[in-house]
């Protein structure tokens, strides 16, 4: 069709698709799935770090952590808004999350077991997320691209804050150093898996590339992340828990060991250490909040009626 041709031409020219523009149903569906999944990840992602707010070991770190978790909620908010421009409401998206139909980033299904986890999530998890997300700032769908620009800016800030917190800990007591190393040991491999399955096994990638939703392959992003992170780990003074990790002069990249994809898929399928807790906690917050949302709605209706009566 003519519309389809115009859409394809826009994509080919690296132009932006806007909410009022015609777009193929599959493009719309893919975007809603991806953006809402991304929004869910932000919301669920508030939980592992939120776990340490009450126990942050200094007021400065407490304030930084609250602000960070709040930013994640904010990201969720404007990602839901971006998805809503595609015609799907927030309630519907939340229903998808709560029923288990929609996914969120599997990394949040691991527990935060010591205070250094907060810094490591900033450094490695946010670091990996940024690698994934920077290309999305050039995504073909305008509202998503613009949301991602803001998200990436804030995530970079979080990443630097996380790394800085770890630097301070690594200059501290033996116990502090041990906490950092322990957290890195637990999170390193999970972060590598965040880039998704190897390109050979990644079904959605090709179409995503063609539509300008995805721009760099999983394996390329993963390599980029590793290459950027190894020097940071050296500066920090932690050991990345991979004996196969070493510089390959010929490739101009770091070689690395085998990711445990069975574990990854098992967690994605709902069987990670915290999947049930994370989801149940979100569902409970939503259900417990029902009476509050009902009250706000009831009050708004009453106010409306009063305004109408006064006008009459």
């Amino acid at each position, binding site marked *: 069709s003519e519309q389809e041709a115009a859409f394809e031409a826009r994509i080919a020219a690296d132009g932006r698709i806007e909410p009022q523009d015609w777009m193929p149903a599959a493009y719309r569906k893919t975007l809603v799935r991806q953006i809402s999944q991304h929004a869910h990840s932000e919301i669920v992602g508030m939980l592992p770090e939120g776990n340490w707010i009450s126990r942050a070991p200094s007021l400065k770190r407490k304030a930084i952590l609250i602000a960070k978790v709040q930013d994640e909620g904010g990201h969720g908010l404007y990602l839901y808004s971006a998805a809503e421009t595609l015609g799907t409401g927030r309630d519907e998206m939340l229903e998808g999350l709560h029923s288990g139909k929609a996914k969120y980033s599997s990394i949040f299904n691991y527990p935060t077991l010591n205070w250094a986890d907060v810094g490591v999530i900033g450094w490695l998890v946010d670091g990996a997320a940024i690698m994934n997300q920077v290309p999305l700032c050039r995504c073909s769908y305008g509202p998503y691209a613009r949301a991602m620009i803001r998200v990436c800016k804030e995530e970079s800030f979080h990443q630097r804050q996380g790394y800085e917190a770890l630097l301070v*800990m690594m200059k501290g007591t033996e116990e*502090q150093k041990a906490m950092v190393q322990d957290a890195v040991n637990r999170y390193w491999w999970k972060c590598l898996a965040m880039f998704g399955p190897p390109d050979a096994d990644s079904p959605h990638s090709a179409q995503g590339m063609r539509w300008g939703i995805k721009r760099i392959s999983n394996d390329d992003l993963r390599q980029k992340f590793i290459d950027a992170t190894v020097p940071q780990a050296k500066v920090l003074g932690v050991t990345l828990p991979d004996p196969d990790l070493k510089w390959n002069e010929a490739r101009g990249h770091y070689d690395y060991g085998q990711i445990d994809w069975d574990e990854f898929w098992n967690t994605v399928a709902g069987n990670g250490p915290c999947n049930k807790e994370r989801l149940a906690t979100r569902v409970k917050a939503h259900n417990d909040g029902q009476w509050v949302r009902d009250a706000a709605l009831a009050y708004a209706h009453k106010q409306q009626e009063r305004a109408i009566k006064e006008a009459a």
Partner: protein
Amino acid sequence: MSTLNDYLLHLADNAVVLGQRNAEWCGHGPVLEEDLALANVSLDHIGQARLLYQHAAAVIGGDASEDKLAYFREPHEFRNYTLLELPHRGPLVGYAAADRDYATTIVRNFLYSALMVMVWDKLQSSSDETLAAIAAKSLKETSYHLHHARDWLIRLGDGTEESHARAQAAVNHLLPYTEEFWTSSEAERAAVAAGVGVDVPALRADWDALVNETLAEATLTRPDFQGYITEGKVGLHSEHLSFLLGEMQGLARAHPNASW
């Protein structure tokens, strides 16, 4: 100097304890926007606490510091109003289990910020210039807190039958704790005498007017009060504070020589 310090700690402890409580909603709010709003309120409180503790630490001198004051004092050394340490729920002993009730959160934030907008306003002309500057900054933040809590209190009171009942229960539960505002501690009297502090009991009529007007708009009734007047601000707390501080201070105390 020691009473000025006691007065600063009263203000700082109020902020840190309520900041800690409000942050408990982070990730668990009734709607995403409220998660963000309460995180904001909490952040403001932690920020106020930091400035006040820093100022107190400067007054105390020696190796006093913001974190020493927040993390290495015992419950009976805390000077916050008892109101602020209560859990987000009705009257239950500290180790009873119960869910958080948003009405309790909102009513407390309302009762406290209604006072603090008046307190910070007056403190802008404190003879302690650092405190005056903190007050100016805090006044802006607290005005927002009041606005937020007042709006929600009206929504809850004049919302559904359930929200009305919950809001009324929270008002009944919490209002008696505000009596502590109107007694004068030695530290408060000394701070007033020195031109540093605010005569809080003198704010009572204005506060009452604001509370009564808001409760009326929220279709809620104000319960009579008789009974025990809490004394958190002189260090005599409820059983809840030691749980709150135990959680807040535990990690820092496990590593007394660490920097973070």
